[in-house]
């Protein structure tokens, strides 16, 4: 059914529209435009900022020091997204093909960590990965067992297990981001796979294609919108992540959000921080634009 023209019932229109429009204008657009204006400003004295229309902040931001952090953040986010896709796809498949009885519980199992506080999840993972944590102790146990087995068959036992540094490096950041973003990936994949016509899979199998071939030639192409949605929904927050790299990464593993935070809280260089923020926002827009172009091309080719 067609939408109603707003002029047909102005009173009803303004009754529902005034508050959300005003709120978005006042508490979203105005603050964002302040950031934008600040990005063209410069520090005058200790606290004052002058809107001088300068491009210096952007010039500084595209120096290699900061550009490399951008590139690195993007690389980390992309890696996290790929790992989430690989881990999450079979889980989404399992959800799709689970029995009616099990599916809600499996879904709840994936969702519950997603509803749990991000900081608590990050902290819990830090306990696991600490030098005395369970990850290290489990590996130590395997090491000791291997050592014992070697001595059992008369070989030199292995040297004693040295706990390895699992926290405060790039690997920890990637692992932490995968841990907190995995549910973001599974849900869109599941909703795409669930909508898929299962008789197509059956037909493919009946016609002699193997499971792997059916997966690659039938399931993946049909689920592509969901896969792209999952990639976007994981990539964008991972790119802007602050907490995980801050807590789990070392000084070498800072991502772009950490650099922005430092400009505002410690370096007190708000204009430069604002410029970096807007570069991050532009990066998001480019990602979204690229994603929205793709399906159109696909449609034309078909």
């Amino acid at each position, binding site marked *: 059914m067609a939408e*109603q023209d707003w002029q047909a019932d102005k009173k009803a229109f303004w009754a529902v529209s005034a508050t959300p429009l005003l709120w978005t204008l006042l508490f979203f657009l105005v603050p964002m435009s302040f950031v934008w204006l600040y990005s063209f400003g410069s520090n005058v004295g200790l606290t004052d900022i002058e809107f001088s229309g300068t491009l210096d902040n952007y010039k500084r931001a595209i120096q290699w020091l900061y550009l490399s952090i951008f590139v690195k953040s993007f690389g980390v986010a992309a890696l996290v997204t790929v790992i989430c896709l690989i881990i999450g796809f079979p889980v989404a498949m399992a959800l799709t093909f689970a029995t009616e009885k099990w599916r809600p519980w499996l879904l709840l199992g994936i969702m519950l960590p997603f509803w749990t506080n991000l900081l608590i999840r990050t902290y819990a993972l830090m306990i696991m990965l600490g030098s005395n944590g369970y990850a290290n102790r489990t590996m130590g146990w395997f090491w000791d067992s291997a050592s014992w087995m070697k001595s059992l068959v008369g070989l030199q036992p292995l040297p004693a297990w040295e706990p390895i540094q699992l926290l405060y490096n790039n690997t920890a950041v990637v692992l932490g981001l995968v841990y907190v973003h995995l549910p973001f990936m599974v849900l869109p994949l599941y909703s795409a796979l669930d909508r898929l016509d299962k008789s197509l899979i059956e037909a493919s199998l009946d016609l002699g294609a193997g499971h792997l071939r059916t997966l690659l030639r039938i399931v993946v192409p049909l689920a592509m919108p969901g896969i792209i949605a999952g990639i976007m929904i994981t990539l964008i927050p991972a790119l802007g992540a602050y907490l995980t790299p801050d807590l789990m990464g070392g000084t070498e593993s800072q991502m772009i959000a950490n650099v*922005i935070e430092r400009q505002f809280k410690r370096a007190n260089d708000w204009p430069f921080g604002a410029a970096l923020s807007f570069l991050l926002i532009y990066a998001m827009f480019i990602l979204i634009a690229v994603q929205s172009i793709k399906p159109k091309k696909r449609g034309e080719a078909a």
Partner: protein
Amino acid sequence: MALFNRTPRAPLEYTRTLWMRSWVTGVLVFLYAPLVVLMIFSFNDSKRNVVWRGFTTKYYEKALSNDTLVEALINSLTIAAFATLASLVIGAMAAIMLWRFRFPFKGAVDGTISLPIIVPEICLGVAMLIFFAWIEWPNDLIWPLNLGAITIAHITFCFPFVTMVVRSRLASFNKEEEEAAKDLGASEWQAFRDVLLPHMRPSLVAGALLAFTLSLDDFVITFFTSGPDTITFPVKVYSMVRFSVTPEVNAASTLLIILTVVLTAVALRLQGTKNLAVSH
């Protein structure tokens, strides 16, 4: 039990293959092991986290007698309650506006309203910092007014999620029902209250749960918006994790995890597990 079911596997019963089961089990272990370990060791009578030294609840007593921690938790719950309520109203209004009306610049308005979902938290946090500094928002108001700035920031990033959820529910509404009500003499308001609102209800529950969780979860935006004297639970836990790891954090975290599970259970009771996927 499915496990002992010996009927041959149909082609699409992927969940009955061993590798699929081990994969899913592995993922669930990966997701839950850290949380379970955290919860178990909150009862551990040891300063260092990993060796079990006997059962104790002393860290719960410590956490609950830690005034700033309790105050932070109360602040967080208060903010979440207000933010949820406001987000629900504003979000539902925006959803109805976008679903029902055709108006100039609709695409731009639609895009702008959903923008807070994709703008990185850090950028929104920075924007709020600059905004509240610019309008010289007072820092020394009495409770709960001192939470105003944080609550406003939370509403800004929560209500678009409510809009998204409510809008997808409205898509399944048959407008003829509303028209029938009006034909039968219902006023605009009565038709809304008795026909449209009941249809929206599951999405309102889902939206409220989502907004509450997002608000309770938020660290970055609060970190930038809060004044020197207002502290929320995530901000407090952050400083505890950052500067002095104590088992108190485990106890406090366990309490919040339990709160999350209880809230989820309540929400599931209210709307049934079938609608679970709607609330993401």
